[in-house]
């Protein structure tokens, strides 16, 4: 820390900026801007999202339009179908674009639901302690003991099919992770002298949570969320593979993977493209999460 202070001395002197209340978020933003890798990852992720959102406009064909007579076209062979066609002669490029809609929506939506359920419960358990903590912890134990995919299938069986129900099921089954994370964080931050000092000066519960507890507990949750989005995309892929996910002909990357798996030997591209897209999404969200975490922590500077 002494070494770091020497180095930051000149820099701090150089940038004489007015500091406001929100300086924590301003500083975080400034640090994020300096992180090239995180910026690139954000660009990649935004690009993927943009293509998925704009699919109805930019896709060359509707996702379910078959071209009989031009099935099993390999990529880069036919100028009409740049990325080739599948067994029914549907354009791969169009299906990948539309598939992104479902996959990204499920990934982000399910992750948000697991956060919306898990974070407040975990914070409550950590903050209140006692009986509240006990009850929530036993709930966590119960959910951890059940295999994830079984819980999802059970919930889908109860809720019925549909895109909304898919991410509710996937999200609800995954609330345990963020819940446990934030509980641990809150427990340790709650005991720090600066939180106690704030309490002793009469800070309200709301101030405590907003000013100290959340900012100091959130970074592992952000990383976990970024890493969780790809898992949710995979979960949807698994469900679609089992016939519980989106219904054909609606494409999703996972469904496309599942459908084409049997042809993988002969028609590698049908597996390759959706797999690469899932991998890129994972990379984008992971690096973005890393960058976000680093920028939220002033100690990560330099």
């Amino acid at each position, binding site marked *: 820390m002494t070494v770091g202070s020497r180095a930051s001395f000149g820099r701090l002197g150089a940038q004489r900026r007015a*500091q406001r209340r929100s*300086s924590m978020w301003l500083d975080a933003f400034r640090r994020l801007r300096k992180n090239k890798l995180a910026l690139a990852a954000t660009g990649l992720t935004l690009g993927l999202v943009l293509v998925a959102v704009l699919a109805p406009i930019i896709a060359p064909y509707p996702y379910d339009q078959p071209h009989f007579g031009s099935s099993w076209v390999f990529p880069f062979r036919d100028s009409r179908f740049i990325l080739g066609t599948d067994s029914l002669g549907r354009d791969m490029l169009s299906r990948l674009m539309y598939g992104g809609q479902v996959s990204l929506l499920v990934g982000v939506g399910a992750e948000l639901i697991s956060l919306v359920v898990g974070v407040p419960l975990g914070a409550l358990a950590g903050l209140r302690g006692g009986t509240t903590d006990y009850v929530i912890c036993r709930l966590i134990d119960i959910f951890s003991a059940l295999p994830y995919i079984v819980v999802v299938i059970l919930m889908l069986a109860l809720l019925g099919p549909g895109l909304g129900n898919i991410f509710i099921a996937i999200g609800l089954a995954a609330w345990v992770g963020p819940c446990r994370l934030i509980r641990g964080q809150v427990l340790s931050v709650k005991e720090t002298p600066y939180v106690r000092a704030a309490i002793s000066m009469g800070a309200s519960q709301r101030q405590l949570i907003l000013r100290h507890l959340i900012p100091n507990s959130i970074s592992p949750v952000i990383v976990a969320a970024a890493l969780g989005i790809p898992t949710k995309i995979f979960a949807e892929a698994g469900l679609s593979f089992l016939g519980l996910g989106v219904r054909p002909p609606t494409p999703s990357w996972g469904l496309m993977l599942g459908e084409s798996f049997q042809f993988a030997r002969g028609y590698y591209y049908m597996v390759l493209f959706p797999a690469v897209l899932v991998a890129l999404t994972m990379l984008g969200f992971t690096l973005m999460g890393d960058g976000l975490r680093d920028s939220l*922590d002033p100690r990560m500077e330099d």
Partner: protein
Amino acid sequence: MAHALRDRRGPPLLDLIDLKTYFFTRDGVVRAVDGVSFQMHHGETLGIVGESGSGKTMTALSIMRLVPAPPGRIVGGRIMFQGNDLLQLREAQMCHVRGRDIALVFQDPMTAFDPLYRIGEQIEEAIEWHLRLDRKARRARCIAALERVGIPAAPERARAYPHEFSGGMIQRAMIAMALACEPKLLIADEPTTALDVTMEAQIVDLLRDLQRDTGMGLIYVTHNMGVVARIAHRVAVMYAGTLVETAPTKTLFGTPKHPYTLGLMRSVPRVDGDLSERLQAIEGLPPDLIDMPDACPFAPRCPFVMARCWDERPQLRMVGEDHHIACFADV
């Protein structure tokens, strides 16, 4: 008993009367502070010494009404601060006493600041809350406080984050924060335990100078006799939740009267002493504070123990000018 302690130097800044702080645990009642009384005057530095678990930190926290509750509770006594009993205040009023009238310097400065906010912001926050100054005045006061504790380039350093400070510097920043609202009483609870000896000496000198310049009262809690000798005007020695001896620093170090204090003095190495001599330890261990009998808590370890010591608890009695001990024996 409390009356025996009063003297004639005007109304005291702090008058602790028979303070009792107990912890109600599953294993029984721990009497962490068991009937402690002392007085402090404006411009005085009181050193509270004692070993770990002797109740010195709990005494300090009780004055701030910061005893962790549950399981702790202040069960008796009065804490008269400038003539008002702090124990009678509502919690909302107490929030304004803490930090403005009485400030506390923690043991571990590294964790006392929120790592996500700049040092200046955190100091200004305290000023804003207590004094309701506008932004400019707040900033000026914050910088002045940092300068007063010897932080170079204070305006720049105010914009640094806690992790950019070294251990000694962050303790200085914390003292600056404590002093920013000009408290009448500063409680320093082992402020140098996290620091090396060189930094310790600097911080102790800094606190002594600040105390002299501002005329505030200072309670310095430590287990380091050397530090106490350096900073305190008067010393209170604690043992097992009770005050066993209090005297002006010179008197205490020159002619200690309580057997426990005597034992402490013998167990501290002296630069001018005979270095070939072995240090003498006090035999035995401090007592378990759960369900203490009505006896002198030091009796099991005391070389001067008498039959009476096992039957009743000795009260503070005067043995010299401003010098009190809780002991039956005349040592």
